[in-house]
């Protein structure tokens, strides 16, 4: 057993009876329940699974290296996207973003991808399909997407902030193109020491970002004519694009 795993298991043991007032307006509290080695095609990780006091969603932290007690830990918050992450949908960029995050973290000394099970909590997936149905009718309106809750959920930050605290990270560098995410974490008591732009390599599926200008209501239109909503709540940046 490696030292990192021993460290992480100590956290699980130490937090076994953890209970606190919780973070954010919903007073969300998470507790690590189990940790294991997770070799992936993107690098070697540990996976830590969390229980929470609000719903049945099981959030996970995917950890590389020893993050415990460290400063300036690079972290990426990723919101679950069944259609993109698992099914390879080309209506969004979630899979590219997740892969880029795992690859990047896998090359660093240490880092974490906090995988937040937003979708499927309550009505996420159903409403995503509704949003796609509206898009199919040419009704990609800002207000409708907002009512559908399209990646606009502050509760995820409470989950992430609590995970960061549980893991004893002294400060974090947030991998994001949306500076607002840093502020959200800071408001929940996380020490944010910096930001790392989240840049993805170009591929056959995201090439349109380099070739087309952001058109309708700030969305990019892909090769099949569909608008790409910013499902991870931040602008997409491909290598070769200027930062937003």
């Amino acid at each position, binding site marked *: 057993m490696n030292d990192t795993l021993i460290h992480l298991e100590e956290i699980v043991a130490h937090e076994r009876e953890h209970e606190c007032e919780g973070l954010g307006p919903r007073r969300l509290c998470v507790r690590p329940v189990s940790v294991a080695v997770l070799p992936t095609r993107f690098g070697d990780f540990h996976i830590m699974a969390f229980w929470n006091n609000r719903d049945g969603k099981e959030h996970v932290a995917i950890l590389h290296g020893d993050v415990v007690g460290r400063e300036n830990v690079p972290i990426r918050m990723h919101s679950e996207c069944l259609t993109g992450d698992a099914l390879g949908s080309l209506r969004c960029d979630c899979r590219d973003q997740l892969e880029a995050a795992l690859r990047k973290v896998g090359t660093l000394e240490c880092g974490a991808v906090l995988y937040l099970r937003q979708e499927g909590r309550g*009505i996420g997936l159903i409403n995503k399909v509704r949003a796609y149905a509206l898009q199919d009718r040419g*009704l990609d*309106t800002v207000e*409708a997407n907002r009512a559908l*809750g399209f990646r606009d959920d502050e509760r995820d930050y409470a989950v992430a902030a609590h995970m960061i605290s549980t893991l004893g990270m002294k400060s974090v560098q947030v991998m994001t193109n949306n500076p607002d995410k840093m502020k959200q974490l800071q408001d929940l008591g996380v020490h944010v020491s910096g930001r790392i732009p989240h840049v993805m390599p170009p591929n056959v599926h995201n090439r349109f970002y380099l070739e087309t200008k952001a058109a309708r209501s700030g969305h990019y239109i892909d090769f099949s004519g569909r608008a790409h909503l910013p499902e991870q709540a931040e602008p997409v940046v491909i290598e070769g694009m200027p930062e937003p």
Partner: protein
Amino acid sequence: MNAIFPLDPHPGVLVVGAGIAGLACARDLAHRGIPVTLLDRGRGVGGRCATRRVDGQPVDHGVAFLHGSDPAFLDALHSVPGATLLEGWPSRVEGTGAPCQPDAFAPNERRVAFAEGVTAFPKMMVAGLDARLVTTVVGLHAEDDLWRLDLAGGGTARARTVVLAMATEETLALVDGLPPGDLELEGARHLLRMVAASVPCLTVIAGYPTDVPAPAWDVAFPETSSILKDVVHDSAKRQDPRWTVLVIQAAARWSRQHAGEPVASWTQSLLSEGARLYGEWVAHPAWTQVRHWQFGRIESGNELSGPLVVEGAGGRTLGIAGEVFAEGGGVQAAWTSGRLLAARLAERTIG
């Protein structure tokens, strides 16, 4: 047609529907100093949070109990002045059928009822607000930078900001009368159509002398009935009740199939089914009353994440809230959606 208010246009926000969503929205707007007037077709506020008095005894014939997990909502329930809060009601539950909201008995959910009737909550919310009851809105029209509401009986009311806080079907009926063309409005309209799936509920209130073998449960959710959704032992909420009262609520599909039949006929069906499940005495009440909830509740899975705000020409703004417009449905969702809507409207009005 004549304007019904001395000030025309209304200087603030007109809220159509004084159910929990409309009340929550109006209350928060008023707290921010925005003039607000509520319009409701009913004789009382609260919508489906409805209490009648029968022989002086309160009877909740819509929502039987309130439940939630949002700390702010629970605080609001606990802040009703002078009310006797029944913490944890219902504590005695019979049967394993599904409750109206799937989360009602989840581990983090708190449940409460009021000994004075569930309307204690909306009555607290309406205190200090301008609410016009028995006022039915029959039409919505754009008039330059204003909305015009046409009222049953011929009056009108105009304002730059109108909130629709009714059942989705009722909101849709008003919004459908607006001319097409505006993309945001079209999006909202399509969204409303997607989620307009309220289910009806035929309800019988049955009173019995207190010497009947009163049930040992507060609420029953029968698992073997295609007729009944639930039976509420309403008098278990009351102090020294004069009558043992059951509120018998029919299942959605059954309600839809039998809503057109004579009241006496479906009343008898519900009582007979109650007797089959819980004892012959249920079939022989001393008195009955009925309520036909056309839009009784929403089916879970139809909720959206938040309220809608659609802006038109010249800052004309339409807000839409209700239990469909927040996760989970039910009273907590209605309350949440109304408050979120108020916050967004206030940003526009003041900012």
